[in-house]
């Protein structure tokens, strides 16, 4: 979870607030560094390149805006100097110039703001789009090995950090540096003597920002760590709340939470107090400077070496020195954080995509459904084989039941058919064609898959079923739902087929969700069907109905069924018993039963139940 706070925009910064304190808090700022900041920056550049012209314009506008904003106090000093001359006409000139300077500054800032906003948002869209597009090409292995919740929040946070840097901070850095340089230039121009006086406090300010900044980063890192731990506790407790409740363990859980919560309080107070020290300290130095200026300036003024207007302008400029300095200090953290985020995003974009289709790959149009699996081996991790030397020959329209204990490799085997993973050796042929020589998309269109856990989208019921065939008419959807025996319950939903499924279909029961995913597969009308334990949590009577529908569906299609229940297996043309990654037995139900093997053992355990049932019914 890390750092939720960064998702909300902090209070807007307003330039030129007088006095110490400043605004905004440092809460929830991620403090981290990119390993290769320059590299990350270089990768971000192409997203801005299309807007080179506009960027140059915005930069010029920012420079103009800063220059004009800096010119104003200088002009004000001039205006004040005119007062002693008792000449209203002479006052008019600097006043009009001030007006013009402020006007130009505002216009330039506006133009720069609007242009930068447009550019950065377009760049962000492109970056998000590229990332998403890349995610789509990643192999399943990638999704198997990364925790999705974490990945998701990381992506959201990282994108947000980059967005902020592009939209605000980049300009702030530019104008900040420009302002500091401008102030130094102007004060030396105005009066080298007074400028030299100011030089006493400016280096102290810079040093202060550096030292406190470093210290703050250290404390904040430990704050972030504890916050992370607290979030982990929160997430786990809330997601396991039902278990907590069912065991009456509320007090225990509360104690665990309290420990993590208190730890956050302690470091939170320390980190935030420390972060807020900078600005008042800068205030002290800034005020010290003002006093020096007043004293020194007064002394010089009495000797006629500087004018009162110059002193006023000087004070005004030296007050402006602290703010950009502090801002730059803060920006350092934010930019580093964003670059670290960018680095992670580019790392993700560098993850190798799924093997691209073979150069001269053909496309399946409609296969008959003959499947030949020859001596295939597969492992997720090198050296840990999951499937060893499996061979299987299936004629079009045959029904294959895959049987075996959990972890035997049944699911892996059917995943290989869809080329979710690539086999290490051996071949899989459909209608005599090696599936590696056809395009992955055309292969997958031949296969209908009902997965172990029904996944639905947060769209309407209608759209979820239509996912199987995007151009299906409403009537087709209804028909598929009827075949899957889902029509009845769908029509009883508040808005029937138009009912929106909230977050991943939470509002439906597991059984109902399965019915929907079956309807989706029915609509897809595949030549080859894969049912991965899909019927396991639909209860018997519903399953009975589904069985009839599926029987209908499986007729004329090659089907691979992974089922728990022997009653669904007995009707299969071939039963394949898989154990520890090997085909240990293969044949019809009767053939296998005749052997003294694993299948017989499995069958007997079920058979014994039957005997029990029979016995019970005959009593």
């Amino acid at each position, binding site marked *: 979870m890390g750092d939720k706070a960064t998702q909300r925009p902090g209070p*807007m910064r307003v330039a030129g607030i007088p006095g110490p304190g400043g605004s905004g808090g440092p809460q929830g700022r991620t403090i981290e560094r990119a390993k290769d900041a320059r590299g990350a920056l270089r990768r971000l550049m192409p997203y801005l390149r299309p807007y080179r012209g506009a960027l140059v314009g915005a930069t010029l506008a920012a420079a103009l805006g800063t220059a004009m904003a800096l010119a104003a106090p200088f002009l004000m000093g001039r205006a004040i100097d005119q007062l002693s001359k008792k000449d209203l006409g002479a006052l008019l000139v600097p006043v009009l110039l001030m007006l013009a300077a402020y006007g130009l500054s505002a216009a330039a800032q506006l133009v720069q703001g609007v242009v930068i906003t*447009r550019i950065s948002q377009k760049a962000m869209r492109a970056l998000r789009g590229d990332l998403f597009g890349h995610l789509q090409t990643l192999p399943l292995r990638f999704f198997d090995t990364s925790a999705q919740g974490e990945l998701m929040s990381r992506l959201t946070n990282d994108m947000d950090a980059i967005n902020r840097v592009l939209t605000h901070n980049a300009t702030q850095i530019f104008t900040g540096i420009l302002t500091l340089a401008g102030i130094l230039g102007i004060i030396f121009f105005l009066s080298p003597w007074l400028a030299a006086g100011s030089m006493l406090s400016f280096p102290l300010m810079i040093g202060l920002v550096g030292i406190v900044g470093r210290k703050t980063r250290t404390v904040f890192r430990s704050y972030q760590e504890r916050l992370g731990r607290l979030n982990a506790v929160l997430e786990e407790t809330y997601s396991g709340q039902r278990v907590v409740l069912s065991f009456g363990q509320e007090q225990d859980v509360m104690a665990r939470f309290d420990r993590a919560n208190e730890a956050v309080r302690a470091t939170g107070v320390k980190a935030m107090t420390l972060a807020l020290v900078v600005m008042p300290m800068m205030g002290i130095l800034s005020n010290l400077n003002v006093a020096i200026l007043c004293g020194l300036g007064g002394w010089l003024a009495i000797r006629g070496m500087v004018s009162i207007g110059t002193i006023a302008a000087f004070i005004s400029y030296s007050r402006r020195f602290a703010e950009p300095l502090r801002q730059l200090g803060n920006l350092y953290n934010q930019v580093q954080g964003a670059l670290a985020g960018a680095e992670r995003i580019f790392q993700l974009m560098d993850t190798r995509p799924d093997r691209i289709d073979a150069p001269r790959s053909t496309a399946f149009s409609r296969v008959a459904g003959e499947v030949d699996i020859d001596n295939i081996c597969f492992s997720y991790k090198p050296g840990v084989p999951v499937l060893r030397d499996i061979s299987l020959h299936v004629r079009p329209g045959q029904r294959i039941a895959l049987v075996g204990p959990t972890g035997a490799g049944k699911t892996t085997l059917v995943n290989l058919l869809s080329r979710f993973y690539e086999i290490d050796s051996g071949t899989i042929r459909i209608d005599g064609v090696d599936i590696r020589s056809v395009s992955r998309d055309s292969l997958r269109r031949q296969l209908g898959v009902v997965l172990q856990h029904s996944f639905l989208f947060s769209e309407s019921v209608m759209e979820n079923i239509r996912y199987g065939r995007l151009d299906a008419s409403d009537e087709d959807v209804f028909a598929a739902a009827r075949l899957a025996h889902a029509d009845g319950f769908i029509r009883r939903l508040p808005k029937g087929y138009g009912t929106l499924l909230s977050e991943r279909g939470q509002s439906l029961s597991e059984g109902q969700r399965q019915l929907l995913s079956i309807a989706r597969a029915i609509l897809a009308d595949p030549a080859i069907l894969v049912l991965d334990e899909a019927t396991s949590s639909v209860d018997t009577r519903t399953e009975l109905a589904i069985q009839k529908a599926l029987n209908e569906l499986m007729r004329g299609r090659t089907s691979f069924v992974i089922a728990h229940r022997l009653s669904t297996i007995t009707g299969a043309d071939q039963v394949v018993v898989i154990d520890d990654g090997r085909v240990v037995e293969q044949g019809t139900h009767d053939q296998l039963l005749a052997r003294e093997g694993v299948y017989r053992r499995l069958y007997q355990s079920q058979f014994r139940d039957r005997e029990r049932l029979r016995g019970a019914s005959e009593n």
Partner: protein
Amino acid sequence: MKSLPRLYRFLRPYRRQSIVALLMLLLMVAADLVIPRLTQRVIDQGIAAHNLPVVITTALYMVAASTLSVILALVNNALSVKAAVGFGTDLRSALMRKVQTFSFGNLDRLQTGHLIVRSTSDVNAVQIIVMLLLRIMTRAPIWAAGAIVLLVFTSPRLAVIMAVFVPLIVALVWIFARKAHRMYRLMQKRLDRLNTVLQENLAGIRVVKAFVRTVHEIGRFDEANTALMNRTMQVAQLMAVFLPLMLLVLNMAIVSAVWFGGKFAIAGEMSVGHVVAAINYLAFALFPILLLGSMLGPLSAADASAGRILEILDAEPRVRPAERPATPDTPKGRIVFEGVGFGYDGNGAEPVLCDVSFAAEPGETVAILGATGSGKSTLIHLIPRFYDVTAGRITFDGTDLRELDLGWLRRTVGVVLQEAVLFSGTVRDNICFGRRTASEEEIRTAARAAQAEDFIAALPKGYDTVIGQRGVTLSGGQRQRIAIARALLVQPKVLILDDATSALDIETEIRLQDALDRLIGVSQGTTTRFIVAQRISTVLLADRILLLDRGRVDAVGTHQELLDSNSLYRDIYRSQLGEPPGEETGRNG
């Protein structure tokens, strides 16, 4: 701004810090406001009068005043941080404490993700506002007020300029803030939408790939992505226009002060020092308004957060603890349903259970069968009071459940839920979750009975193997077995298995079943069991089978009785044996 003030009670423990912090602010403003006065003295009485001692003493006063202001700011910061962080910590704790009083009825309405957001970013948003309130938001109006008063004293005529600009600035801030608030909300919606699409593509990538829908998904994402870009642009452009515009208006006010003040000074009606001081006061008076305006955004965001937090804090626990809770000493485990009815949404919605009556004698095993959505899970969830009945009553050894101590009831009734949720920690920690004091022997016995011992032994560190968050490193079947061991360990008087074996393969399930059977044999007469199951074989040994059909009891009896008298049961039975269903099938479709 309705919700934020209601959270005031969480600031109350930090009232002392808060009041002192605000007092500091007041003094700080006073110190700050003295400085333009002193500047005026330097100019008029020092420089103009060529009086160096005045210049130097006044400069020292200025240093003193501003140093005081800075020290006050430091104290204010420290106190504000303490109060705000304390506020946030307590608020988070209150949320967690509240959630602990929730039953399933409350939890059904809340998604875990939302709960987490409320305890993290919502609390954070409110905490930031409290800190701003104590540090800046309160200071701004005092500052403005003080500056205005002093401006009027310094130059009543220049104060008129204020009278022109203040309403203008206030109006502008108001208009922009309202607009920004609305736009921000719309943008947030677009962001949520984008995140949903992304989330779904991470979680449902198999489906996307299996149906070859990459192009479709990229299109869906593009749509959400562009919509978000447009909204974000709107908000950011509004700000890009607002800030320069506001600064322009402020600066115009200052330029007019320079012009008119200059005119008065040239006419000899005001000293130069007075003009400079007046300009300073004008700036002091106007900037806080802008500052406040810029805080309206975060403020209304924080108010929305406070609203979401209050939604939880205000929620009525659906299951209330008994007023004078009974904790029977020697529970027997006799559970009786008397005309029980239940609906998830009180009125309107179709009731899930209707007029359910039956009795489970101590030590009996009751199996519950029925179609999807027939109310099986609901029925057993009523026993540990995960929900309360909406009609009739359930008694435990003759006492209404609602009169028993809730904690006692839940520790006496052991439940294995459909979805096995584990916690991070070791395997042992998880099994001991319900009874930390269990001995090693008891843990092993429970694990053995749950058929979990073999795979636990095969884990790298056995019982001390650390399993990841929510047990992701284990298979569904393994998690399920640990969950069963966890329930067995508390040696409940009443044990409920909610279709807990569906994630197991046949062999394991059979072994588990045997173990449970043996356990049943051992504990015969001591543990009352409710089993929700789909397989007839699972329920064969049950003393009583409860057949549910659309929330009603279709039949109660032993296997044999139901086989003889109930056609629905016969259908299920036949389908389990792989035989074609009878002609009378399909009352339920």
